[in-house]
Structure formats: structure tokens, C-alpha cells
């Protein structure tokens, strides 16, 4: 399956992904309702977009007391069935990433559903920081990035660059 990943070096915090997500799911540009959130770190001039990772072993899915969370067989997305959701917020408490949000107006939980396989956030990302990639490749890239940063740290520790 494919998931949305973010290259934090490329993200410029334009928040187009948030607008695109809000429009796709809510029909307006209420950024607060977006299911992808860009954390902006002013001091470090860094931005980190965060959205659901559609965990292979999704605790929110297992723990939902309404049986409202299921994996979409077509896209692999972990998706909430709003018609079944009771709004009990157990999934908010289960997600270690804070990637599930509560819609107080409708009284249901909401999360990324990968837009049926063509995520709007990725389509409208101006800097191509967001990519829609195979989860396994993403894990590989993550390992490489971690290796690289470890090497950098080791080099820095030895006083070199």
C-alpha cells in the first residue's frame, strides 16, 4: 500500500496541503478542519507535515468500540466510517501520533482516508515535499535518513564535518 510521506527539508510551510485537505473533505478552506497538519518551527526554520501513517498494526482500528474503523481493501487506508462512529474519542486516545481529530460539529472522529487513493494534499503540494509512496519504500528511505543523521552525529562528535 501507499502512504503520504513528507520530506521535511523540502516543506516550505505554505499550508496548501491543509487547504487542499479541508476543501476535499469539507468543501471549504477551513484549515483547522484539515486532516494533515503542518507544524512550523520558527526558530529552526523547519516545517513538519503530519498526517496518518495508516499503521500496519493500527491500534485505533483494533480498539474502536464501535467497529467503525476498518482498512479500505482498495487503498489500504485505515478509515473511519462516520455513520458508525459514536464519537467516543477512544481513537484519539489510542493514536500515539495525535493524527486523529474530533469534529465537534458532527460529533465524530475524523482522519486521513488517502482520498480514495489520490490524496489531495500530495496533488497540491507546491514544493513536492509530500509524496505518495509505497510504505515499504518509505520505511527504507526513513532508515537511510536515520543512518545519514547518525553518521553526521558521529562525525560531529569526532570534531569533523
Amino acid at each position: 500500500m501507499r502512504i503520504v510521506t513528507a520530506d521535511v527539508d523540502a516543506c516550505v510551510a505554505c499550508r496548501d496541503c491543509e487547504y487542499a485537505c479541508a476543501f476535499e473533505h469539507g468543501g471549504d478552506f477551513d484549515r483547522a478542519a484539515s486532516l494533515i497538519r503542518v507544524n512550523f518551527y520558527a526558530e529552526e526554520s523547519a516545517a513538519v507535515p503530519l498526517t496518518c501513517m495508516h499503521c500496519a498494526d493500527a491500534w485505533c482500528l483494533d480498539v474502536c468500540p464501535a467497529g467503525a474503523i476498518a482498512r479500505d481493501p482498495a487503498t489500504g487506508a485505515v478509515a473511519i466510517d462516520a455513520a458508525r462512529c459514536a464519537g467516543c474519542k477512544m481513537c484519539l486516545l489510542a493514536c500515539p501520533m495525535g493524527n486523529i481529530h474530533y469534529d465537534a460539529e458532527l460529533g465524530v472522529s475524523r482522519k486521513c482516508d488517502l482520498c480514495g487513493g489520490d490524496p489531495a494534499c500530495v496533488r497540491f503540494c507546491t514544493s513536492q515535499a509530500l509524496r505518495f509512496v509505497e510504505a515499504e519504500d518509505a520505511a527504507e528511505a526513513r532508515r537511510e535518513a536515520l543512518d545519514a543523521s547518525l553518521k553526521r552525529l558521529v562525525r560531529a562528535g569526532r570534531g569533523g564535518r
Partner: protein
Amino acid sequence: MTAHLAVVGNSAAALSALESFRRAGGTARVTLVSAEPGPAYSRVLLPYFLRGKVSRDGLVIRGPEFYERMGAELVSGVRVVGVDACARELELAGGRRLGYDGLLLATGSRPARPPIPGLDHAAVRSLWTLDDALGLDPVLRPGVRALVLGSGFVALQAAWAARCRGLEVTVVELDGRIMPRVLDAGAAAVLHGRLEAHGVPVHTGTATESLQDEDGRVRVTAAGLDPFTVDVVITGTGARPNDELLPQALEKGRPGIPVDAAMRTSVDGVYAAGDVTRGPTALGGPPEIHALWPTAVEQGRVAGANLAAELAGAADAGPALASAPPAPAVTYRGSLSMNVTEMFGLTVASLGRFVDTDEDDVLVTDGLPGLAYFKLVSRDGLPVGAVALGGAGGAVILGRLRPYVRWGKPLPELSSFLEGRVPAFLPGRPLPGPFAGLARAAERS
């Protein structure tokens, strides 16, 4: 011949175990025996049903196709009355016997009955089973007077549902404050005020002395209160485990079937999961009963995987070695209490150990955006529990906090964590590198 797994129960722990059993490659024939009729429904949602948030159909969480897909037979509406662990047989009501190679007891718990004279009055109800909820539904009419006995999770959700439907509700709690097991004293005080603001008088530290019939209604006598009359009494005074099927495994005077980290009981071939167990906890200390939905799901997963391994081993080795189970395939990291609901306009959430002692460090604040109350308890620099009252954001903060509590990891810098600026990560599994990203950004600038 294929082995046979018998599961007693048909709720969170049983269903989770069944799924986990198949996922782990368990090929045995499976029978679920449930005292309640019909397919599985969600107990957690019963108050939501009474509030009209969920339909009756919405309570059903597994339909007949689920059991078919899982290759399991559901025998529902039949009580298991005994376990013959030597013969490996269940005795069902009506005399039928059901042999098993592996057994999972996921029998849950039932409402505790406080020792109050008159509790058997027809107008005294609880909110525990689907039948309870269906029976209460027509009773909850505007203007009806209700007494809620107790102030735990179930009691106050019942009170909120009744209040939402226009009843005159009074809460009487024996303890000195409301929600003694779900909230700390500070949060309880905030919620207490909220109940009163919604027109629900709360009498804490008050013993209910008797309930007497008064033309079909109930005359309530409670210490320190003028006697009053109500149309319905809803009890919510805690739960006790349905642990009678395995008396030989119980510790004297302590309810709950003791289980190890593999969810094995002390009886060969018998596992237990969910509300019925007394098991290991994430924060260490003596085993506890954590009668919570998430705990039941977690324990069921562990039991299911280990039963798959045990029954596979039994099939390979033949009956002679069947009583020497292999090393468990999966062990439980221990239960971590987590609660969340919405009542009286507040999201009420708690995690881990939130009642502090002298040795703890405590942060209490009403200054976080959207939260009326937030408390974080830590010991030796490690977070052990938290409480949040207010908006739904409190549940999100507690969710992000949960891995740190479960794994005993120090928190990142607190203010940025609480503001949501630092994404949580699971220790040992770095996520797409916010921290690496920060380092690189610093290098560039």
C-alpha cells in the same frame, strides 16, 4: 483430527482473541459460547445509544458474516455452568458438554451490587447489557425523576444520558468525591461543578440507607438527606469479574482470575482475558483488574496468539505432550488504564496513574488552550499518568503521551510537547525524522 478452541464470551476480549488466533495461523475449530443472545454488541456504546448517538443496529459490532469469515461457531444465549479442566470439557446450561483442547475464558464482569436494602425493587436498574439499555430506553422520558447510585464511568454516563433526555437526575456517591477510579480529586471537583451547573445535584460522601416501594416508585433514604421519591434508580457502583468458572485458579478473597503475561491461568490449557482477569500492569506493581475495553482488546490479542502456538504445538506433539505448552509466542506488556468519554459538555480523559503521592512530580494547570483542567504526574522524570478535562484536544494530548508512559520514556521538552509542537514517537522506531529534520535545518541556517 483438528484441535478445538472454546471461547467463553463474545465481547472485546473474545473477539480480539479470535481475530488474533486466526492471524497467528491458528487452524483449530473454534466455538464461542455466550450467555447473552445474538451477535456481539458494544457495551461501551450503550450510554451513546441512550443519548441517541448510536442506533440499535449501530450497537452490533460483528455480524454473522464475521463468525463465518473467522471459521467460528457462535453458540449464543447459552450459559456455561462449569469447566471440567481434567476432562477438558465445558458444561453448558441444559446439560450439553463441549470438549476443548484450548479454552479462553473471556466472561467479562457484571455490576457490583451494593448492600442496600430494597435494591431488588423493579424500578432499580443497571446499564450493563443490551437488555438493560433496551429496558431503560422507554423509561427515560422528560420529567421522570431518577436517582443514580454511584459516580463511576457508567453511572455518570447514565446520568448524562438521562439528563439529556430531560429527566430530573440526582447522583448519590458513597465516596468523598465523584469518579474515584477515573479522575483525580482536582478533575473530579471540576466535573462535579459541571454536573451541578447542568442541574444535576451530586451528594458525595453520602450513604444510601434504603430503597422502599411507594406505589411502584422508590422512596430513597440517604444519610444526611431528606427522604425523596424517584421513578427509577440506576446503579453504577462498580463491577466484579465473572470468575466463578475457574475457582481452582482464584486467590483466596481476591476477585479476578490471575493470569501471567501470556494470559495463561494456573490451569493447564486455560487462558483468560478481559474484565475477568487480574493481570500484569504496564507500570509494575501487583497484578490488577483493569476492566476496560482497550485492556480487553490487548489481552485478547495476546491470548489468541499464544493459544494458536499452543494448539499448533499440541497437534504436532500429539496428546502426550499437550499439557506441556511451548514458550509463549507473545507476552503482554501489561495493562495501562485509559479512559475517555464526553459528558456534561466535557471530554473527560485519563491515563495511567493519575493520583499522585509525595514522591511524584505533578503539573496541574487550567492554562492550556481548550482545557479546563490538565494534570501530569511523573516520577523520577518519567511520566506515569495524566488527566485532561475540556475539549477533545485533551484526549489527543493523552494519546501522544501514552507511549511515553507505557514505555517509561522521558518526555521531550514539556511546553513544546503540550503545544503539540513535538510529534510523539515510539521509542526504538523513529518516525519520519522531525528531529533529524531539525538538525539539518540548523545546519543549513
